[in-house]
């Protein structure tokens, strides 16, 4: 991947990265009433960010830049979702009970809130973590061994049971 040597590409990615993240956030937030939601937003976020970064810096570098432990991200997402599910039980409600309502905030005016969004946030984080992990790991894993035989060739190797 020679792409990381292109300053034009790096600049464009810098320019586009935050709008893309905002787009993902928008898709996430509108999900309650309009098409969108945590799953799609997570896909957009992870896919776009991983690809843009990968294109700009090369995947090896992108993985380094994104030096967060994927297992921890996945754990965080699952924890948020699980807490949202089990939380109501601690307050004496049925498990998975969601609450919603309207709230007046300064500047923003009347805002709707819903605990379901928290659960969706967990979904979002898990999807982001998984997809990023897959894209970046596979991208980086392949990118660093251009001279070596590819997985496609090795795939045809019959399984041998160890004696």
């Amino acid at each position, binding site marked *: 991947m020679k792409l990381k040597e292109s300053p034009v590409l790096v600049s464009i990615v810098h320019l586009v990265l935050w709008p893309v993240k905002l787009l993902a956030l928008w898709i996430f937030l509108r999900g309650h009433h309009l098409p969108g939601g945590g799953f799609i937003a997570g896909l957009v976020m992870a*896919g776009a960010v991983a690809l843009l970064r990968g294109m700009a810096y090369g995947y090896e570098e992108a993985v380094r830049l994104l030096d967060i432990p*994927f297992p921890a991200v996945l754990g965080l997402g699952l924890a948020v979702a699980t807490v949202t599910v089990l939380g109501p039980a601690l307050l004496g409600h049925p498990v998975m009970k969601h609450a919603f309502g309207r709230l007046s905030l300064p500047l923003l005016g009347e805002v709707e809130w819903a605990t379901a969004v928290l659960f969706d946030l967990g*979904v979002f984080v898990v999807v982001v973590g998984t997809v990023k992990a897959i894209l970046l790991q596979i991208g980086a894993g392949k990118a660093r061994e251009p001279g070596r035989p590819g997985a496609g060739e090795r795939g045809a190797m019959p399984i041998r049971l160890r004696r």
Partner: protein
Amino acid sequence: MAAALGAIVLPFAGAVLMPLLYRLLGRRLGYAALAVAVATLALVLSIPEGFSGTVNWVPQLGIALTVQADGWGRLLALLITGIGTLVMLYSILYLGAEEDLGKFYLYILLFMGAMLGVVLSGNLLVLYVFWELTSVASFLLIGFWYTEESGVYGAVKALLITVSGGLAMLAGITILGSIAGTYELTALVDRRSEVLAHPLSGVALVLILLGAFTKSAQVPFHIWLPDAMAAPTPVSAYLHSATMVKAGLFLVARLWPLFSPHPYWTGLVSTVGLATMVLGAYLALQKTDLKAILAMSTVSQLGLILSLFGYGTAEGVAAGILHLFNHSTFKGLLFMVVGIIDHMTGTREVTRLSGLARAMPVTAALAAVGAGAMAGVPLLSGFVSKELFLEASLHGPLGALAAAVGTGASILTTTYCLVLAHKIFYGPETHDTPKHPHEAPWPMLLPPAVLAAVVVAVGVYPGLVEHGLVAPAVAAVLGEEPHLHLALWHGFTPALGMSAVALVGGLVAYRRLDALAALLGRIAGSIRLHANAVYDYLWWREKAVERWARAITSYQMTGFLRDYLVFILGAAVLGILTTAWMKGLRIGELNLAPVEPHEWVLMGVIAAGALTTLLARNRLVAIAALGITGLPVSLYFAWMRAPDLALTQLVVEVITTVLFLLVFAHLPQLKVDPPTPRYRDVNVLVAVAVGAVAALYTLLAAGLRRFPPEIARYYLENSYEAAGGKNVVNVILVDFRGWDTLFEITVLSMAGLAVYSLTRLGRSREAEEARGGESW
């Protein structure tokens, strides 16, 4: 309940703690294990007699943790904990500080818990679980010295044979359970006539007996027991003579009330038992390793007890139970003695050991007690039970034949007992041993001395164990109060005569030992088929089973994705078509959904994309074409007014295509070999079949509209009122069906973790290869 459950749980808990305690206590760990054993013994003693209780475990499958501590279970539990305590004490001195004591006591306590589980369980399925656990513990203990080949061989052999039998037993138990509708032992006995009348009861019986026979080393499965002697001697004394090998006998007696009237019962149980008794005694005389002699004599004695349970008479049961108790004590004693000899002289070869009595007088006395009891010398415990054995054999269904076989085997038994007690200790003194022999320290002599005291006490005054131990056990098996009269002197009975013949005959044979050995050698030379050779062919040297398994596996696990797809898709198509055919679906009568013109167009695009993917000569083209097949699907969703689905499909499609492209850059040039006709035909067949079936069922499902519209209406009506969201799809995902989503993201996380760790693993291995390290 607390005492009974505690007795099962405590050894397990202790076992888990052993490796931790090992760090604290070091070589004094044995005392901790001893404490666990003593506490368990106390718990067993405090179980009320005849206690039974139930804790539900998996009520849907009829599995309950039923504790059935009747006399029979309690007798075994007492043996397990009592001898276990002595073995722990003995092992403290036996095992050197260089051994991995943490593991040793972990395994042996694991065994203790599992074995208690077997004998106290009142549910056959629970019993089976503990049963297999004892096999695992035995495997670990036999292979304790796993750097020795003999240890590995013995461990694998014991495990394969006992677990194979165990699996047969599980099948038998399942059949039995489906006949009677219960796995509870007491309920099974209540439904005896129903069970016995069922045509499959014979199959169940044979399968269960296979489990019992393999566990108790009956012919032809006896071959694992001698090789199990690779274990440290305390293990041999505990598992492979006193307790675990009794599990099969225990089960046979447990099922006695249920199965003893079965027509196969005597034919199977007594015949196998008597054959084993003779063969074991014969083989014992051929061995020169002391532990091998004891192993074969254990085989023989187990056969003796088994034959007694097979007679189907109350007399037989009583004799069997008493002899089981006696055998556990005197054989445990003999193993401990052999361990001492091994420890003090450095060898177990009979040919090198002689005249040790002067150096080891106490050991000599202990050996005399143990061997005397086994031979049936009066005033020792074995005499009483052997009398009962001969008498019960004579009165049993096999009559004089069984008594004659028993007497014959007893002559051989007496002969090798004399080898153990006389030749080694009172033969001409030699100085051929690797170590200069001297008497063992008293803590090592204490456990066998305790057992010897029991042997003598029971021999002199059999009533000692009659009322507290043996009679309740016999009563539990028979289901009625037995008429026991254990005594030294029964008058001049045929049994007394046979006992005398056995003792005198053995003495004569011992005098002519060389001639006897020559005779036995000639017999051995004429035998062509050896069970050991069969085992070695199947599992060890030729590894035939492994080869067959590999042949089958490599037939289906080819490593080619295409083959897997053919298997999976072919099975799916066949399964669906078979179901449809059996349910009587006829194509002509189907109410298929109509296909709109725009749907035809979309399908045309998808088909074109798929065809392009197939025919592409260039991988990039193939990937792009594959992407094309996905996009119309998303358009289709949009048309069906499912914007969420459309959006998701779009994003997924883009990411998948990109993922392909990522990998693409590093794949070799696409090679399109001209496929062989058969290869192509199968591909076409599977592809067309899958396409046709999928299309048919999609149209069918859409046309049927079986799904009640109330479901959709419920979601539409309630999503805003109850959940506050206007996007019904999303509300379903996060609220109505939130559990699904929670588990879906869990699965997603697992997939992510798998990819993450796999790619990391691959990379660290590559790094290792790059450093020139060995990769595996």
